[in-house]
């Protein structure tokens, strides 16, 4: 229990050294060139503080930056903060800011921007940050021009994981202070601190970013221009990569079967790295307010009746890993010591018999999440397995708006959903299980209606633990109980594949992957 071990500071020099060593071992980076990518679907805005959709982060991540970033092992990395320090009681967090950072309009980046972002902008506009700041933060102050101090009301072990781009994009005070953030016309001409600036956004066609000549890291960025193309048809996106029109495919840009085919092309590289911070985990969301899902044994029976390895292998083309726990295996606090559900129809039927549920009396409406064909196939498979158990089941097709509404209003029997983990269970996972989060109006809360005071207590205890071992023990216990209760039918951890042409170097460098500022990315000439 050495609490001083929680003192982490001055990592910037170290990070610089590792980079130099890695680059020296390989080729020497060259500057210049144009990188072509795809923004799918077209983002509504590039203002990351107002929208955290995938493509918004992808493009906006080149314009805006977080206070911190995170490595592939989820280690903390400097971004707009070059160092950070945590007091021994876990209540005071001090960040030291980078020097000489300028906004794209030439104004200097100061500690006031960070305070404005934390205390005003994100508190009003960002649901996840609002929860953190209102629940835990007592004050945000600046003892000196290069330091910002967050004082907490009570310890929050996940606090340092809340400063990544999608949770804490730093926004310019001089543009937003005193305005209505959502309708500020500046949202269309984003001003950030990132390595690239918005040159032109031709809606429906492309987003064009150019090098920020005054970027705060000397000699960077290496690439001159970025194009994010809007190509609405999935087959056309595959063609675009095949023909060399685009150099990079982000996870989800093309269908699963295309991933396999395109990965085998000559001069093409792939990785599943760069999603560690998010680690999406897919699950069946069943409505615990309705029979048969209010019966724990029936839920367990259904879990045994679903061959999740089959789903990963055949429906998701192997791009995933069967889920063990509600925590992704790539994140901290994951444990393997949980209740498991191997595919076993005999056991499933036995459990169902014990549960007292008569399956033929229940018609289950299976509603796929409308995010593509693979989800539809998954829903069809689950429907088939429910029928194998004797339930009646029907598929309900719905579009994104209808789905969001139905789940938000708890008007569903069984649907599918997934969660981003955001590096710490308190940020990405707990929201689906805490009974305090049974709220209508969003599809990403505890929509299934799970209430377990023991789990609530354990999440609370882990989140406010000052000591990592204490958090670990509480989380281990929580994972065991959750996998026994199965309030959500855990399916699999999604593995997104980034595909790129050989000439693109240093593309996926951190745990937020292609959303990371592409300042060190370069193109072999």
């Amino acid at each position: 229990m050495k609490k001083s071990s929680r003192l982490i500071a001055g990592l910037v020099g170290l990070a610089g050294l590792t980079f130099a060593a890695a680059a020296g071992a390989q080729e020497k980076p060259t500057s210049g060139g144009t990188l072509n990518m795809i923004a799918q679907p077209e983002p509504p805005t590039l203002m990351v503080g107002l929208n955290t959709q995938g493509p918004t982060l992808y493009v906006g991540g080149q314009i805006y930056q977080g206070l911190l970033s995170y490595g592939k092992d989820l280690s903390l990395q400097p971004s707009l903060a070059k160092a950070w320090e945590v007091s021994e009681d876990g209540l005071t967090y001090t960040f030291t800011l980078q020097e000489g950072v300028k906004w794209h309009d030439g104004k200097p980046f100061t500690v006031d921007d960070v305070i404005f972002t934390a205390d005003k902008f994100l508190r009003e506009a960002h649901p996840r940050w609002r929860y953190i700041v209102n629940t835990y933060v007592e004050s945000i102050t600046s003892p000196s021009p290069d330091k910002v101090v967050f004082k907490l009301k009570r310890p929050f072990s996940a606090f340092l994981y809340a400063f990544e781009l999608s949770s804490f994009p730093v926004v310019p005070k001089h543009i937003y202070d005193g305005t209505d953030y959502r309708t500020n016309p500046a949202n269309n001409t984003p001003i950030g601190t990132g390595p690239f600036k918005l040159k032109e956004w031709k809606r429906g066609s492309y987003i064009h970013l150019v090098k920020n000549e005054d970027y705060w890291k000397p000699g960077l960025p290496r690439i001159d221009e970025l194009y994010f193309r809007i190509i609405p048809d999935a087959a056309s996106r595959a063609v675009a990569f095949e023909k060399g029109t685009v150099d990079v495919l982000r996870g989800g840009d093309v269908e699963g079967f295309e991933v396999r085919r395109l990965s085998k092309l000559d001069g093409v590289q792939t990785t599943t790295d760069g999603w560690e911070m998010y680690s999406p985990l897919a699950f069946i969301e069943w409505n615990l307010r309705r029979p048969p899902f209010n019966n724990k044994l029936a839920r367990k029976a259904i879990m045994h009746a679903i061959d999740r390895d089959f789903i990963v292998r055949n429906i998701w083309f192997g791009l995933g890993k069967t889920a063990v726990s509600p925590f992704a295996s790539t994140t901290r606090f994951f444990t393997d010591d949980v209740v498991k559900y191997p595919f076993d129809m005999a056991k499933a039927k036995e459990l169902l018999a014990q549960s007292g549920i008569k399956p033929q009396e229940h018609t289950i409406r299976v509603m796929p999440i409308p995010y593509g064909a693979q989800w539809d196939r998954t829903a069809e498979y689950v429907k088939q397995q429910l029928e194998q158990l004797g339930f009646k089941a029907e598929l309900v097709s719905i579009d994104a708006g209808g789905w969001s509404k139905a789940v938000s209003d708890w008007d569903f029997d069984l649907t599918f959903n997934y969660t981003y983990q955001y590096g710490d269970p308190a940020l990405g996972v707990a929201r689906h299980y805490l009974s305090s989060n049974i709220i209508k109006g969003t599809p990403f809360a505890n929509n299934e209606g799970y209430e377990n005071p023991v789990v609530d207590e354990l999440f609370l205890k882990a989140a406010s633990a000052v000591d990592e071992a204490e958090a670990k023990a509480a989380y281990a216990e929580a994972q065991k109980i959750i996998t026994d209760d199965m309030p959500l039918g855990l399916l699999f951890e999604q593995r997104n594949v980034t595909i790129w042409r050989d000439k693109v170097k240093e593309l996926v460098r951190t745990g937020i992957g292609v959303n990371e500022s592409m300042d060190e990315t370069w193109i072999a000439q």
Partner: protein
Amino acid sequence: MKTLEFLIQRLVKAVIVVLGVVILNFLLIQLAPGDPASVLAGEAGAGDEQFIAQLRAQFGLDQPVYVQLWSYLQNILSGDLGYSYRNQVPVAQLIMERLPATLLLTGSAFIFSLILGVVLGVLAAYKRGSFGDSLIMTGALIFYATPLFWVALMAVLVFSIHLDLLPPFDMETIGANYTGWARVVDIAHHLVLPTVTLGLFFTAVYTRLTRASMLEVMNLDFVKTARAKGVPKGRIIRRHVLRNAILPVFTFASVQAGQLVGGAVLTETVFAWPGIGRLMFDALMQRDYPVLLGVFLVTAIVVVLVNLVTDLLYRFVDPRIETAR
């Protein structure tokens, strides 16, 4: 004078029709499950009650429907199409950005299919029963029956991927910064595949219509008379038959012209054409009501105007028709 009276009468009707369309669309949209706030919250990957309430208040969705409708109508009548919920840009601006691309595509497809369809139809009728006739009619039948998106995908596969002759998508080479004629040539190059894809169906329709109508007229007495007088065959076809046979084609062309704005959603999607059809489709999926209503309004206006122009043109195409029907 009669024409002027007709015109005024029709314009008044047109305004009423367009207003009716606006009101009907507005009410129909309310029936779709889910509102823009819930879609935006869903996309954001997070959202609490406060977030959604903020959005609803910002969009005015917390007002009763009749209040929303009334303020929308007031805005429309004062020429304001509103603000896109999602893009935070005036709807009129979004539509004006996209409209030229769509008009270029649908206009080219219109001209392409009309000319090619009539020429093929005349050829088929002229050489009735020959191999050429069978060939043309088989082709017409195939393209009449084949779904558009399949034709589009196959065209991309053959002409872009295998032969590498034509660009598979986009309206121009992105990043090339062509100007002047180089840009015109570049856009024309990109225009070929989508135009042909979009135009093939109507080409088939015109071919079949022209041929059938030509054959019918060719059997009429005045054609026999002309032939007996010794008028050359080519002249008979051009002056006597085609002129009289063109009316059904004209009617159908007016139908196609009515689709100039809203009829290219699929083609625009496959070829990543930055047009208004995709704007409409995206707006529908995202429940971006002001954009959707704006596109509907523009589409309705174009349909009404095209109908008006068609009715006026009938007089010139066939002077036997009275305008004041």
